[in-house]
């Protein structure tokens, strides 16, 4: 029994396919998680990140079917994410409807809409060929995973530092952090609290929409839009933010961790190990739940997280 467990671990650690798949899942999660991190810094626990990913995924796939150009498809995905974000932002931070109510309704709405549109305009995609970076992709084990992915995956490389710079090195970012920690103080010092929150949700929408696009265009084995592809990955991205204790570095590590478990579910059967399919499928979600339980109290979250701001109230 113990020997076989070691056998499995050894197989998994030495499998290039495993690393490849894990990195791809991690990158897709990282797009959404980076956006979500910005929104949470401003004080919104944005559960419609799921809807933004679904919107981005379907729109990218559909536009790719029509135009056959990857950049246009990805841009369309971003646009779809931003549209969802616009609805979320204005309903929750202008009309001050409860943000979870709006988020949940949007998740169900976009899921249904994508399903309906897909039944009419079938979105079919073909895989973008991996770009192998010379020499670096020859490194054993991790080489191909890190330096031999389809090019849309590499968009994560500029986006993460850009998000960090935006939040920690610009006036806008300073205001976003102020709004997330102490909206009342931010308000009296002349910051438009709800406007900053709305803008940060737009950032989340753009990132998550792009993530959805990368999911359908950059993943091997995906040949079109399917409802299950996003399958709560947005919520897992939120779990990654919690895991990271609201730091960007930790968030990305969280994405890597969850990506690994998503990959495990795909690779174990390929490597010839029998694993209970239900257990394998629920593994990333169980891990996400456990990990948030361990880390949720560890660090300070934005103090006004998930609290609506209405001037004059409290």
């Amino acid at each position: 029994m113990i020997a076989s467990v070691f056998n499995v671990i050894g197989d998994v650690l030495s499998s290039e396919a495993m690393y490849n798949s894990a990195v791809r899942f991690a990158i897709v999660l990282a797009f959404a998680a980076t956006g979500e991190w910005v929104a949470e810094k401003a004080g919104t626990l944005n559960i419609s990140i799921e809807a933004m990913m679904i919107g981005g995924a379907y729109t990218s796939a559909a536009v790719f079917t029509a135009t056959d150009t990857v950049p246009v498809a990805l841009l369309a995905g971003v646009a779809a994410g931003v549209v969802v974000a616009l609805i979320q932002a204005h309903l929750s931070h202008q009309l001050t409807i409860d943000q979870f109510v709006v988020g949940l309704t949007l998740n169900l709405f976009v899921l249904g809409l994508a399903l309906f549109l897909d039944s009419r305009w079938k979105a079919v995609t073909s895989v973008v060929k991996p770009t192998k970076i010379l020499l670096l992709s020859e490194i054993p084990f991790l080489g191909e995973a890190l330096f031999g992915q389809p090019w849309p995956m590499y968009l994560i490389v500029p986006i993460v530092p850009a998000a960090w710079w935006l939040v920690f090195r610009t006036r806008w970012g300073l205001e976003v952090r102020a709004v997330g920690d102490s909206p009342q103080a931010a308000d009296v010092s002349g910051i438009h609290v709800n406007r900053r929150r709305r803008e940060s949700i737009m950032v989340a929408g753009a990132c998550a929409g792009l993530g959805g696009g990368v999911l359908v265009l950059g993943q091997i084995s995906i040949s079109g839009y399917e409802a299950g592809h996003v399958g709560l990955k947005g919520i897992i991205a939120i779990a990654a933010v919690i895991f990271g204790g609201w730091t960007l570095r930790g968030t990305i590590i969280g994405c890597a961790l969850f990506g690994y478990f998503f990959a495990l579910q795909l690779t174990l059967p390929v490597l010839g190990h029998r694993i209970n399919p239900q257990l394998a499928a629920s593994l990333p979600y169980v891990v996400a739940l456990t990990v948030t339980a361990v880390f949720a109290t560890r660090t300070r979250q934005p103090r006004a997280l998930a609290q609506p701001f209405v001037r004059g109230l409290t």
Partner: protein
Amino acid sequence: MRAPDAAVIRRGLKVTGMYVVSIAVALSLSAGLIAITGGPWRKVLSALLDGSIRNPGRWGGTLAEAAPLLIVALGAIISTRAGLVNIGQEGQVAVGAALAAFVATRGSGPLVLVAAIAAGFIGGALWAGIAALLRFWRNVPEVISTLLLVFIAAQATGYLLTRTFLLLDSDPNKPNRVQTSAQLDSATRIGRVRLFGNEFPWSVPVALLLAIAVALLLHRSVWGFRLTVLGRNPRTAQRIGVPVVVAGAAALAISGAMAGLAGAAMLAGGTANYRYTPGFANSVGWEGLLVALVARNRPLVCLPTAFIFASLRTGSGFLAATGVERSIVDVVRALLVLALLVPPAVAAVQRRRVSPPPAAAAAEEPTVIMGATA
């Protein structure tokens, strides 16, 4: 009784007007969507009406669908009252139904039925209890944990259906190859009411009574008052002696228990031909939650809302003839929910802009702010 002054009447008319406009916008957006994709929207509307009310024997079916939605919604209201956002009803329904099936397929007779329904209730409570535990022990937002538990519930109940000693039907002559549980014995089923050529299970009138009971409990009992204080201001609640953690965890567990109860009632009331099947919950959890949101957490308003949502469910069965995918119903439903959320919010914003005279302000229902407990 003081005669309402002109400003109040004007405001009421304005809100009503906004409701009419936003519902009209939602419906015309849906019609537009059907039209763009080349479907006949008039036929869709008429198919929905035929399937839900107009055709003989259909409104009984709609009532039968409405009962679980209503029960789920009542549970959602209880947790929302306490300021906790339980959005994992879909999983709680599945777990409740699975446990009910586990008990119900072990015997037959009315006692087993009662035990099965209790099992459903407990199953839902336990599943939501995980989220409650994580919320109060480890500070995990219940929004996230309940959602993740939906997915885990689907897999866990799926696992139960792969083993004959758990749920899988061991009968070699079972009707098809889909993995389902054994059928409930006819003595273990909820009886059916026959009325004007329609029939529905007894769970429908029971759900109606439950709605009244929940309304009374929330608005007229000390327990309900405590929950309300807890939801609006946890600090005040603590000062007046409400055990914040116990009451909050109980509210979350009870909301899950109601969802589990709905699952058990569906199983014993004839959903999926008295068998537990993969995907048994079939969005009842999500839709029940939406019912509560649209009713803005008032139990009695849930009655008509649940019926309307159930009409969309039963009506969608008639859509095949029109050639439009039934997933259009999901879109219409979500648009309707968004449309119904907007007018009260707009009214609240306007009220804040023009600060009202004190008398009118006192008469207004204070805005409930959900999720303000963090």
